[in-house]
């Protein structure tokens, strides 16, 4: 079984679903019980997920805590869930953010509260599933499934243009990930034809692509693809993840979705900021197709740089805080993409760090935007003014988050950005030119974020803003918890980078040999 002799990952994965089912039995009107139940389930899930970290074996580069049950055996499909150094952090991020998001919804969702909680819990399961599933078929199922609660949450509880936002947030990634289905089928068949075993098991497929379970060792690839096939397969995954992540120019749906998603930020955080696409890039594109990754890296690097600058530039013009945050998140993801396709240990680690950090920081900012909206009824910075004076705690915590997002060293945002830049600089695929341009993004980030902060939180207090109440202890708790983590991993990032290393070493090694194979 696994090192615990206990299906821990499965437990983490299915607890929210069980909670969602349990919610069905709570009477529709009993909001208090619904709150406690949903929050309790989310919290318990988080607590249960912590042992994943404590029991994690830092010396293994492949999957741990493996739960494997045959499912459709004749097709080689299995229920296989587990984590490795990369997915571990995404799982923990999800379980950590969900209880906070739950608490955020308590004040904002007035109608159909039960359904909202239920969908959030389902969403949590789905997202965890994406990170934990190590069977391509299962992965695809979770990957697509998350769209349903996402679309419903946006469409049922969103802003005035919610229907369009929900439609787009569903259709665009859905359409794109259908291509991934093709890619999955293609790999499955190629693997079956070449090795004789028809399977969707990621561990097996990775092994036959040259990944070894022990860090430092080099495996022998047995699944060999012709360059054309490999590029096409890479392309199918790329489209899916590029839209999902999103990469420029596939990003517009995300902006709209963020803008229209329910004001409290819960959906933004759980559905839109969880970087399923970025995770997919690392797990599938880079690990499965090292050679094509190397081939495509410069192009994707260019896209990433454009994304960093373009999104930051667009963010500057935004007056809706959530739209601004959406662009900011896109800009951050540009860094993540740059790091991934630096194709070295530093870059990929930095990318993972950046995505986690972006989830925390931008998530916190979305919560903060929700808190502003709950008080003021608008997120338009032209109507806000002097909030820092009226609500000092909100102002202070928001400012801390803003600076974390800008990339102040000591907070989490910087670590990711710097390691990415360093990685990209050292990368044979990218190089310093990319970094030089990407670094400009840090200026632009400061510009748009502080511009926003200046307009909404600083300045004199205009009458409509004069009588706002400051944060409640509960809200302080939400942002405080986030800030503690942000500061914690900013000051001691090795906490996260350490467990990642074995996996990263393996990735770097395989990529390295791919590089060696390509360079004449």
């Amino acid at each position: 079984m696994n090192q615990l002799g206990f299906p821990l990952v499965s437990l983490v994965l299915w607890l929210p679903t069980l909670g969602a089912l349990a919610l069905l039995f709570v009477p529709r009107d009993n909001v208090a019980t619904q709150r406690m139940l949903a929050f309790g389930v989310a919290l318990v899930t988080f607590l249960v997920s912590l042992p994943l970290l404590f029991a994690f074996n830092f010396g293994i580069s492949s999957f741990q805590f493996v739960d494997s049950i045959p499912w459709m055996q004749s097709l080689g499909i299995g229920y296989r869930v587990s984590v490795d150094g990369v997915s571990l952090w995404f799982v923990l991020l999800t379980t950590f953010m969900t209880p906070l998001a739950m608490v955020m919804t308590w004040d904002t969702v007035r109608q159909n509260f039960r359904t909202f909680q239920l969908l959030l819990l389902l969403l949590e399961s789905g997202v965890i599933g994406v990170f934990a599933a190590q069977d391509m078929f299962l992965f695809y199922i979770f990957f697509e499934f998350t769209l349903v609660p996402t679309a419903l949450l946006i469409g049922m509880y969103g802003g005035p243009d919610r229907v369009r936002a929900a439609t787009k947030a569903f259709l665009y990634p859905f359409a794109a990930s259908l291509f991934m289905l093709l890619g999955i089928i293609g790999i499955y068949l190629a693997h079956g034809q070449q090795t004789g075993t028809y399977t969707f098991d990621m561990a097996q497929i990775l092994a036959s692509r040259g990944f070894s379970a022990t860090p430092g060792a080099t495996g022998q690839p047995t699944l060999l693809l012709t360059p054309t096939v490999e590029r096409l397969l890479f392309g199918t995954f790329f489209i899916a993840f590029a839209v999902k992540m999103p990469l420029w120019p596939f990003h517009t749906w995300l902006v709209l979705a963020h803008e229209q998603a329910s004001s409290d930020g819960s959906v933004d955080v759980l559905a839109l900021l969880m970087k399923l696409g970025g995770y997919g890039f690392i797990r599938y594109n880079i690990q499965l197709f090292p050679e094509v990754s190397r081939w495509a890296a410069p192009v994707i690097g260019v896209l990433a740089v454009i994304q960093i600058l373009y999104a930051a530039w667009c963010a500057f013009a935004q007056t809706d805080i959530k739209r601004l945050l959406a662009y900011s998140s896109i800009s951050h993801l540009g860094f993540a993409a740059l790091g991934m396709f630096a194709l070295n240990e530093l870059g990929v680690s930095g990318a993972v760090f950046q995505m986690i950090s972006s989830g925390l920081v931008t998530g916190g900012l979305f919560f903060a935007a929700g808190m502003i909206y709950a008080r003021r009824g608008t997120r338009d910075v032209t109507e806000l003014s002097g909030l820092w004076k009226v609500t000092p705690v909100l102002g202070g915590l928001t400012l801390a988050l803003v600076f974390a997002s800008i990339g102040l060293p000591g907070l989490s945002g910087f670590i990711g950005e710097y390691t990415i830049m360093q990685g990209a600089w050292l990368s044979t695929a990218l190089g310093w030119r990319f970094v030089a341009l990407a670094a400009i993004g840090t200026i632009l980030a400061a510009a748009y974020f502080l511009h926003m902060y200046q307009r909404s939180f600083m300045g004199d207090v205009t009458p409509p803003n004069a009588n706002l109440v400051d944060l409640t202890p509960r809200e302080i708790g939400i942002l405080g918890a986030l800030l503690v983590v942000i500061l914690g991993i900013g000051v001691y990032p090795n906490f996260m980078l350490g467990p990642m290393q074995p996996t990263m070493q393996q990735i770097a090694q395989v990529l390295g040999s791919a590089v060696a194979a390509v360079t004449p």
Partner: protein
Amino acid sequence: MELPQVDIAVVLQIAIVFVWAMGMLLAVLFVKNVRAIGLASLVGTVVAALAGIPLWNANRSTFGGMLALDNYALTLNWIFLGITAITILISLDYLPRHGIEQGEYYVLLLFATGAMMLLGQGNDLIVLFLGLELLSITLYVLAGFAYPRLSSEEAAMKYLLVGAFAAGFLVFGIALVYGASGASNLTAINTFLAQQNGRTDDVSLLLVGAALVVVGFGYKIAMAPFHMWTPDVYEGSPTPVAAFMSVGAKSAGFAALTRFLVVALPAERAVWVPILAALAAVTMIVGNVSAVAQTNVKRMLAYSSVGHAGYILMGTLAGNSTGSRGVEAMLFYLVAYSLTNLAAFAVLITLEQRGESAWSLDSFAGLWERQPWLAVAMGICMFSLAGMPLTAGFVGKFYVFAAAWQAGLIWLTVVGVVTSAISAFFYLRIVVQMFMRSPAAGVRPVIDRGLDIGIAIATIGILVFGIIPTPIVDLVQNSIVALGQ
């Protein structure tokens, strides 16, 4: 004169259905309660289905190889009977509500079921032709069953004229095939082809005939460009009949087409695969793209059923290439698609008022607030049709794509993927209406027990087979076309 030896087991299910139908016909004379006749017919389908269980792995044929009973046919029989059962369930209250309550409805339904089973089991062009015609004749009547409602009559007439036209081609095709090979038995045709040394003139003639036969079946499965009748007929027919046609007649058509291609023409695979693949692509594109502009949900479902014909056809095409799982993929898709479409049409029935505007997209608005479970069920159906994971529709699509890819039809899978993406648009529109808009005034869903059970069975089936497809997968994997190959 000596009557031939007949293997009763092979015809058992068909016989049960026909005899039951005749029994019902008698009952119509004496029993006033139409509902009771419906329930009795339901029992008939169950009996027939149960009768098939011991026949698993029988793999026998009778009547000189005209009728085969392999697992393929058996599985199809169960699918057909299931379709009929659910159709009966959703018709029970539909008929009186719309003032068209006549016992003959169920009789015709049973006749159609028998015809479908003939198409599944038939291994001879004569049987296939007769089965197809029997199916058509009953469906003409069923489509027009809501006369004097104009749309129903119009549907029947359109179906009739196009059907008769197609029948002409089918007969001519059979004539050519027969002329070229001297046989009407599929196995014999295969043998003939195998004996021919290369592309003789006879083979050319046979191929032209085969083309016309495919046209005849293609009309039944609503393959483009023989699909044009579909939206009009579905819209005009009484909704349960439309549901029945969209899944039953289509499944039967596929059953026959697949058997014809797999048993009779495997040797000419290289010839028919490209053209049929092209038509499958056109079918998917036309069906799904046309549906985008529809605001009439019934028509939208009709177009979508055209699109799905393309996906199923992918399975058929992958059919008998080496190592491919085409046939089983097709069967799985049929199961998934049948459950889903039946449930979707059933939900339509609940919304159907006396007017005909009830199928407009707006009548779905806010359904979730009025009838949460109904909305959830419809949502599941839509997601299943779109191929969303955790529903049977997804597994079906996956299966079909994988089979087609394996058979080398990669470009076709790309078309499939693109059209699936397009289809998600209009399926999602219904979900959006149900969950994200406020309720429309005036539309009050009416649910009765038959519909309840029908929708529940189908929806649960969609979910269960989406999450645990193993039973169906095992079933279809063993449902190979065993006879005649």
